[in-house]
Every structure is written in structure tokens, then in C-alpha cells.
């Protein structure tokens, strides 16, 4: 049961009755007991505990308990007074006095725990003052009822008053301590033993001092102090009750210390002693309690403070460890950034414009050939290594960057530096400008990348590309009556330039020079050799008709200028008019001839050692053969037929199988099929193939395209001669048609307005014994040409049956017709 529940007013009737009965019974029993200690007659005692009980009852249960008190007091007084009226009056006094005392205590804010000095003070002041009421009424009643004489009123009053007051001072705290003083939890046995021992000691001492005649009663005071100091009200209240009880008992029974002296003297001694005991106990206990509470509060606040300190320390250590790990992470990122910069060869920098402070990353220093952070950077120091030609550019860029405006990315710039060791590096700089709120330049940040290697690689790549382009013809010349196709497949494992090449040139005499070759090795050196060989071959091909002689001169060239180079090559000169060809082979795989029937054979003749390994320029041999219309000559490099671990024979046989399986394919298709059938997915060596096939011009029509240049007229006449022969034209009429066509083409080349560039389109046709030659150009003929042009036109008209000239926006078309076998000149001669 908590104190709060006890203090609350329980309105339940049962509880109220129980309270009343308990209080009444306690009052009565205490009264009967104390009456045995009466000093005056039978009803005035020096210690009247019921008053203490009544005060506590009023404090605990409130005023409403008064009937129980009053009734109990009446019952107590009734037998010891002479009339019921006197008893009632005494009972009324005995009821009102504690009620007033309780009321006074409540008014001053008394705490029932008596744990403050002011509570002790309150009870010490309230008890005697309110007990004036009961003493006056009680003593007055005794006098009025003639129980005592009026002369004895003063002493009776005094005894009554002190008895009541002592009852309150001694008993009330004890009861309150029983009711309210909480037991401390977990009280140790040692402490309990101490309490019991102390009470026993107090009892013994009290008995001892009261049994001697010496005035040694003050000896109990230290013990009371001990009780108060060690156990506060819980110890001091019972101790005070015990001591007062024993003293009172001793006084009443006239023990040694009270043996002598008058009643008043004994009374005074006893009450002074009791008062001293009570005051000492209350005040000391209250003081100790108060001090202890203050100490507890202090300890508590100290503990709280300590806890706060501990908490804060913990927080701080957490903060510190977080900061440390953040710093660690930061350092780690900085290191990663530095590593990344080093790998990418990218440095970064910052320039605080207003403070003129420049910072460089470690890689910036390395790029410039310094040790990282070798010295503090400044703007002038930063541009110190820039080569003079580029320095002006840098300064201009900076000047342009430092104009007010918005945040912006600056143009990328490339410049060169010369390190202190003399090496030159190419750098690419990127930068951005940050401005302040007013748009004034605040800082420039940027990166610098060392692109020297990149530039070098790009240059090498460009050179290789250029060489590659020069090695392989972008397109094969269009030769009437000859179909050609070529393929080049680079290696898939090595992106570099390979060693294979081919070329087709139209020689001035209308023949074709055809070459396919392979230079040992790869890369730029091989490419460079190929380029030189190709150009040299072109030059020699113009001068020499013999393939063996051309290869011999190449051999001389290689021996003289390209020491230790080795190359294989097939070079042949093909006459489109006859289909005859002469070839020489310098250590190269033999060309394959595929007849129109599908049968094929390799041209094993004309074979000599490779260029660079031959005995001398004159050691090359050549051989001749013939290609009939519809048959095919296939030239190729070893990559086509060589496979790792396979004998070359297998490759050569496979190639024959493939061409046999595709007898009627056009050359482009044939090339594709050969590559698809023979090449593995992984091509370790590059491959070139070149196919050539004479085709008949005698079909229903042929188309010739030639450059509009005088030098192209001779090859054209070769083609025309072959055509005229194939359509069975006679020698004289062939010559006349040849001249007429030559005049038409010469006019088209010489006379169109504007540049003579472009091409002529010539269509040859035969229909029902009549030939038709159409020459188209992109220009416009002059209406009447002086001199030669006029002669030409007149000659054409003389030589042909009909000559039509149509001049339009897109060019001029000349249409020549003549019936074969007629003999125009003979007829004209006759008409003449």
C-alpha cells in the first residue's frame, strides 16, 4: 500500500468504520496504559500518548475521525471522573486539542516524514501550544468537579499540559515513523543488527542511569544522536519513545534518580529531560535526513554530470573516429585519383585567379619532367617549358579566358613543351573557367594530357595508310574486251599493313602489264618496299616489253638500294588484241589458267628465284602463253593456298577444285567463291588475288569508256581493231572506220568548250551488216571549227555512210554508220 492510497480519503463506509474502531481502540488502550503512570490522582499523567495518537489520526485520516477520538476519550475519562459531564468536557478538550495541533501542522506545510528541520520545528511548536487547550479544559474540569482543589489547579494544569505535549512529541513521531517512514529496500542484516543493538543499548543505558542517584541521564543523548545519525526518524523516534517511556516510568515509580525532591521538581526534571530527548531526536534526525537528501541530490547531479560527460566523450570519440575514417577515405580517393592520372597520363591543375595561386597534381609535374610537387607552382613557372612557337597561343588563350562572363568550358588546345632534359612532348589541354557572382573570373581548372605517343601512333598509322593506298590500285583500269577482278584480304591477327600487292597498268602499245607480288615481312618497312617496287615496276613496264627484263631491273634496284629485301613477283604482259601474254615468275606461286571448259592448269614455266635471291639481273626467264576468249587467268599470293600444317599441294588442288566447281561465274563472283572456300576464319597471312579474262567484243554491242585525253586514242584504236577483226570487217574498210572513229574521238577530246577533263563514252554495235559507232562527250562542239576540226568532220562524212552530230545541254553525240562489205571508197571513186 502506498502512502498516496493511505492519504486519500476513502469514502467507503466500511473503511471509515474500521478506521474509527482502530483509532478509538488504540486511543483507549494507550490511555489505560498511561493512566498507570499518573502522578496526580489517577488521571493526570506526565506522558499522555493518546494525544499523540489523536494528532496522528487527524493528520492521517482528517477531521472526520473526531467522533472516534471523542468517544474513546469519553470512555477513558468516564470511570475516572465524578460525573459524565466532567468526562464529556475533558473528552472535548482532549479531542479539540489534537485537532487544532493537526490543523496547525497542516497549515504550515508539515511533512509527515519529518525529514526537514522545519517539520521538526513545526511539531515542536504546534504540540505545546495546542495542548494549552486540553490542559486548561482538563485541569479546569478537575477543579470544577471538585476532584482537586483550586489550589492544585496550577500543578494539575502543568502536568496535564506537559503530559499532552510529551504525548505528542514522543508518540506522534514514532507512529508517523511506523506509518510513513519507508523502509529502505535491501536493508542489510548488519544494519538491522546495529539497529537492534542500539535500541538494546539505549534501553540498558536508560535503565542504568535511572537506577543511579547520580544525575547521569544526559548519557543517553549521544546514543540518541547515534540513532538519529545512523537511522534518522526511523531510529530516533523509537529511541526517543523508549528513553522517554523509561524516564517517565522511573519518575512515576520513584527510581533512584527521582527518589528525592518534590513532585513538581521531579515533574520538571522529567519533562525537561523528555523535551530534550524529543528535540534532540527530531532535529538531529531531520537535519541528518536533510543533509543526506542534499548529499543524494548532489551525488545524483554529480552522477548526472558524470553521465553527461561520459556521453559527450563517447560522442566525441565517435566523431573523432568518423573523422579519421573520412580522412582515410579521402586519402584513399586522392591516391586513386593520382594513380588514375598516372595511368591515363592526365594531369590536373587549378589557378585561383585573384589570389594568383596555382596548384598542380603529381602527374602534372611528371608530364613536365619534374618530380611530384618538386617546387611550388606559379603561372610563369607553369608555362616556362612551352616551346616559344606555342607560348603566344597559350597566352592568348589565357587572356581570352580571363574576360568576365559566365562559367564556361574553354576550347581544347594542343601545344608542345620542351622538358629540361630536352625531350619534346605534345600536350592537349582542356580547361574550364569559373566566375564569381559578378561574373569576374574566379578560378581556372583544367587537365593536361600527354598525347605524344598518340600523335606518334597517329602519324605512323597515317603513313601506313597512305602506303597501303599507294600499294593497291583503288580500281582496275577499264579495258575493252578484258574483264578483271581483284581482292585483297588483310590479316585478321595483325592490323598492320601486309606484304601482298597487285597492279594492272595499261601500256602505251595497248598491252596490259599485270603484276602480283609479295614482299617478305610486314609493317611499315614491308609496305615501303612494296610501294617502291610497285612504282619501279610501272616505270620499267613502260620501257621494257619483256617481263623478264622488267623483273631483272627490279632485281638490280633491290640489290642496289633495298639491300637484304626479298620479294616474289609474277609480271606478265597481256595483249588484249590477240590474247597472247608473256610472263615471268620470280619465286611466286604459279598463276592458274582456267579454260572456258572448266579445265585448269598452273603455269609452271617462266620460273626464277625471288627478287633479292637471284643470281643477277639477267637470270630471269620468261615464257609465253595464250588466253582464248572465255578462259581465265588467276594470279594469287601464297596466303590463299598455304595453311599451317597442310602441304602447299593440298592448297593448289583445293583451288583447282573450287574453280572447277564454278565454271560460268563472272570474275567478281569467282573471286568471292574462291576466298569463301579457301580462307580460314583466322587469316595469319594477307591474301591478294587477281583474275583476268578476255571477252569477245563481237557481241551485239560493246561499251568503252576512255579518258578524254589524246594519249587514250592509241589504246582505243587497239580495241577498235580487235573489234573490227572479230566482226570480220575487211582491211581497207576497217582502216577507214578506224580513221572516222579516230576523228570523232579527236574532235570530242579537242573541241568541247570548257575543260577537256572527263571521259568519252563509245558504243560499238553491229546490226544486220551495218556497224554503228556512237561517241558521247560532256561538252559542246564549236559550230564551225577552223582548220583541222572541219577537215575531221568532212573526212568522217567521206568515210562513213552517215554521220549525225547532236549537240545538247549535256554534251555532244556523234553517230557514225556504215554498211560492211560495200567498199565506200570504191563506190565514191566510181561516182567521181
Amino acid at each position: 500500500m502506498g502512502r498516496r492510497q493511505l492519504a486519500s480519503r476513502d469514502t467507503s463506509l466500511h473503511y471509515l468504520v474500521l478506521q474509527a474502531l482502530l483509532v478509538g481502540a488504540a486511543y483507549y488502550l494507550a490511555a489505560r496504559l498511561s493512566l498507570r503512570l499518573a502522578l496526580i490522582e489517577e488521571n493526570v499523567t506526565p506522558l499522555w500518548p493518546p494525544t499523540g495518537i489523536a494528532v496522528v489520526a487527524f493528520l492521517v485520516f482528517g477531521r472526520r475521525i473526531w467522533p472516534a477520538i471523542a468517544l474513546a476519550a469519553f470512555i477513558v475519562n468516564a470511570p475516572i471522573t465524578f460525573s459524565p459531564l466532567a468526562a464529556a468536557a475533558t473528552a472535548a478538550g482532549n479531542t479539540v486539542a489534537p485537532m487544532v495541533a493537526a490543523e496547525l501542522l497542516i497549515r504550515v506545510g508539515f511533512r509527515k516524514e519529518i525529514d526537514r528541520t522545519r517539520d521538526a520545528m513545526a511539531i515542536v511548536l504546534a504540540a505545546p501550544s495546542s495542548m494549552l487547550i486540553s490542559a486548561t479544559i482538563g485541569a479546569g474540569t478537575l477543579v470544577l468537579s471538585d476532584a482537586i482543589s483550586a489550589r492544585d489547579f496550577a500543578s494539575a494544569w502543568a502536568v496535564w499540559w506537559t503530559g499532552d505535549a510529551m504525548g505528542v512529541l514522543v508518540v506522534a513521531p514514532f507512529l508517523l515513523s511506523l506509518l510513513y517512514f519507508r523502509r529502505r529496500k535491501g536493508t542489510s542484516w548488519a544494519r538491522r543488527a546495529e539497529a537492534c543493538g542500539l535500541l538494546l543499548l539505549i534501553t540498558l543505558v536508560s535503565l542504568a542511569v535511572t537506577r543511579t542517584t547520580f544525575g547521569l541521564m544526559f548519557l543517553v543523548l549521544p546514543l540518541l544522536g547515534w540513532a538519529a545519525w545512523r537511522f534518522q526518524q526511523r531510529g530516533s523516534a523509537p529511541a526517543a519513545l523508549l528513553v522517554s517511556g523509561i524516564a517517565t516510568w522511573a519518575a512515576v515509580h520513584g527510581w533512584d534518580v527521582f527518589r528525592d525532591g518534590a513532585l513538581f521538581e521531579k515533574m520538571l526534571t522529567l519533562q525537561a529531560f523528555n523535551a530534550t530527548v524529543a528535540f534532540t531526536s527530531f532535529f538531529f534526525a531531520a537535519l541528518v535526513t536533510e543533509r543526506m537528501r542534499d548529499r543524494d541530490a548532489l551525488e545524483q547531479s554529480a552522477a548526472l554530470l558524470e553521465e553527461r560527460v561520459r556521453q559527450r566523450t563517447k560522442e566525441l570519440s565517435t566523431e573523432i573516429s568518423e573523422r579519421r575514417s573520412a580522412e582515410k577515405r579521402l586519402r584513399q580517393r586522392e591516391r586513386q585519383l593520382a594513380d588514375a592520372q598516372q595511368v591515363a597520363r592526365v594531369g590536373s591543375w587549378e589557378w585561383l585567379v585573384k589570389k594568383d595561386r596555382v596548384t598542380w597534381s603529381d602527374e602534372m609535374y611528371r608530364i613536365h619532367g619534374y618530380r611530384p610537387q618538386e617546387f611550388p607552382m606559379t603561372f610563369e613557372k607553369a608555362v616556362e617549358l612551352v616551346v616559344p612557337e606555342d607560348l603566344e597561343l597559350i597566352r592568348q588563350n589565357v587572356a581570352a579566358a580571363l574576360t568576365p562572363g559566365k562559367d564556361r568550358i574553354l576550347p581544347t588546345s594542343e601545344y608542345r613543351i620542351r622538358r629540361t632534359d630536352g625531350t619534346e612532348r605534345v600536350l592537349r589541354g582542356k580547361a574550364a573557367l569559373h566566375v564569381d557572382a559578378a561574373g569576374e573570373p574566379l578560378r581556372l581548372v583544367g587537365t593536361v594530357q600527354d598525347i605524344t605517343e598518340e600523335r606518334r601512333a597517329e602519324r605512323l598509322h597515317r603513313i601506313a595508310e597512305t602506303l597501303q593506298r599507294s600499294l593497291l590500285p583503288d580500281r582496275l583500269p577499264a579495258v575493252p574486251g578484258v574483264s578483271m577482278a581483284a581482292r585483297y584480304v588483310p590479316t585478321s591477327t595483325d592490323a598492320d599493313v601486309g606484304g601482298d600487292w597487285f597492279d594492272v597498268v595499261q601500256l602505251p602499245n595497248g598491252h596490259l602489264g599485270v603484276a602480283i607480288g609479295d614482299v617478305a615481312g610486314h609493317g611499315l618497312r614491308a609496305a615501303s618496299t612494296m610501294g617502291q617496287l610497285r612504282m619501279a615496276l610501272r616505270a620499267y613496264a613502260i620501257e621494257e616489253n619483256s617481263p623478264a627484263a622488267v623483273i631483272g631491273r627490279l632485281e638490280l634496284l633491290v640489290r642496289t638500294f633495298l639491300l637484304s629485301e626479298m620479294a616474289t613477283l609474277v609480271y606478265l604482259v597481256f595483249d588484249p588484241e590477240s590474247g597472247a601474254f608473256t610472263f615471268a615468275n620470280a619465286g611466286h606461286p604459279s598463276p592458274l589458267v582456267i579454260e572456258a571448259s572448266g579445265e585448269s592448269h598452273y603455269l609452271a614455266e617462266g620460273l626464277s628465284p625471288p627478287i633479292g635471291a637471284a643470281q643477277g639481273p639477267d637470270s630471269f626467264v620468261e615464257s609465253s602463253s595464250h588466253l582464248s576468249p572465255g578462259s581465265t587467268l588467276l594470279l594469287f599470293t601464297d596466303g590463299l593456298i598455304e595453311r599451317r600444317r597442310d602441304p602447299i599441294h593440298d592448297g593448289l588442288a583445293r583451288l583447282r577444285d573450287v574453280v572447277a566447281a564454278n565454271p560460268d561465274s563472272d570474275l567478281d563472283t569467282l573471286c568471292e567463291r574462291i576466298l569463301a572456300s579457301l580462307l580460314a576464319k583466322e587469316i595469319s597471312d594477307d591474301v591478294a588475288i587477281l583474275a583476268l579474262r578476255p571477252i569477245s567484243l563481237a557481241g551485239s554491242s560493246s561499251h568503252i569508256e576512255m579518258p578524254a585525253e589524246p594519249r587514250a586514242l592509241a589504246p582505243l584504236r587497239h580495241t577498235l581493231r580487235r573489234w573490227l577483226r572479230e566482226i570480220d570487217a575487211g582491211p581497207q574498210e576497217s582502216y577507214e572506220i578506224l580513221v572516222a572513229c579516230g576523228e570523232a574521238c579527236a574532235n570530242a577530246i579537242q573541241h568541247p568548250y570548257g575543260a577537256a577533263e572527263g571521259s568519252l563514252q563509245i558504243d560499238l554495235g553491229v546490226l544486220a551488216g551495218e556497224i554503228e559507232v556512237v561517241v558521247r562527250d560532256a561538252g559542246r562542239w564549236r559550230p564551225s571549227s577552223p582548220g583541222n576540226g572541219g577537215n575531221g568532220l568532212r573526212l568522217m562524212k567521206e568515210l562513213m555512210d552517215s554521220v549525225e552530230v547532236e549537240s545538247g545541254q549535256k554534251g555532244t553525240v556523234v553517230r557514225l554508220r556504215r554498211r560492211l562489205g560495200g567498199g565506200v571508197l570504191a563506190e565514191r571513186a566510181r561516182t567521181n
Partner: protein
Amino acid sequence: MRGGVCVLRIVGEVDISNARALAEAIEGAVPNDATEVVVDLARTTYLDSAGVQLLIQLSERLKARRHELRVVVPDGAPVRAVLELAGLSKVIPLESAIDSGDQASAPGVP
């Protein structure tokens, strides 16, 4: 060259691609003391209006230098028919062969 007669043989084809160069070569080849210049077209395989033009202009220029131009073309040659058709025979006499008299003619004859 024998005596005052200079014989020039044109081998191959004549068209606009080489006519001008050929004319210069012939003029350069004719010595000043030659009285006659004979152009032999027996081995000329092609000759069109550019060639005819060349011969006419050559004749005029040689006349100015007091040389006489004669052109020799075999009778059956295809070139001859075209030359006749082009009207060259009206300007320059076409002969079918180099006669011995020419070859025997002595230099210095006016």
C-alpha cells in the same frame, strides 16, 4: 640524205597526240642545204586528219625555206586512200615509191 634529197620515214601512228611533236621533229631534221624532202609513209599504220594537216603545214613551211616536199605512199596502203579522200593529193603529189633518180640526185641542185 643523199645529195639535196632528204628522206624521212614515219613509222607507226600519227594522231593529235603526237602530230605537233612530229612536225617539229621533221622540221628540225631537215638540213638547210636539202632541196627536196621526201616523207615516206610506207610503214605508217595510222594517219588521220591531224596527220594530213601536219603534212600540209609542213609543205608550206618547207616551201618558205625553198625545200620541196614529196610524199611517198605505196599504192595498196590503206593510208593512201584516206589521204586521197582528204584531198592531200591536190596539194602534195603522192608518189607510190621513192624513185632512184631522187636517191641519185646530187646535192646542191637548185
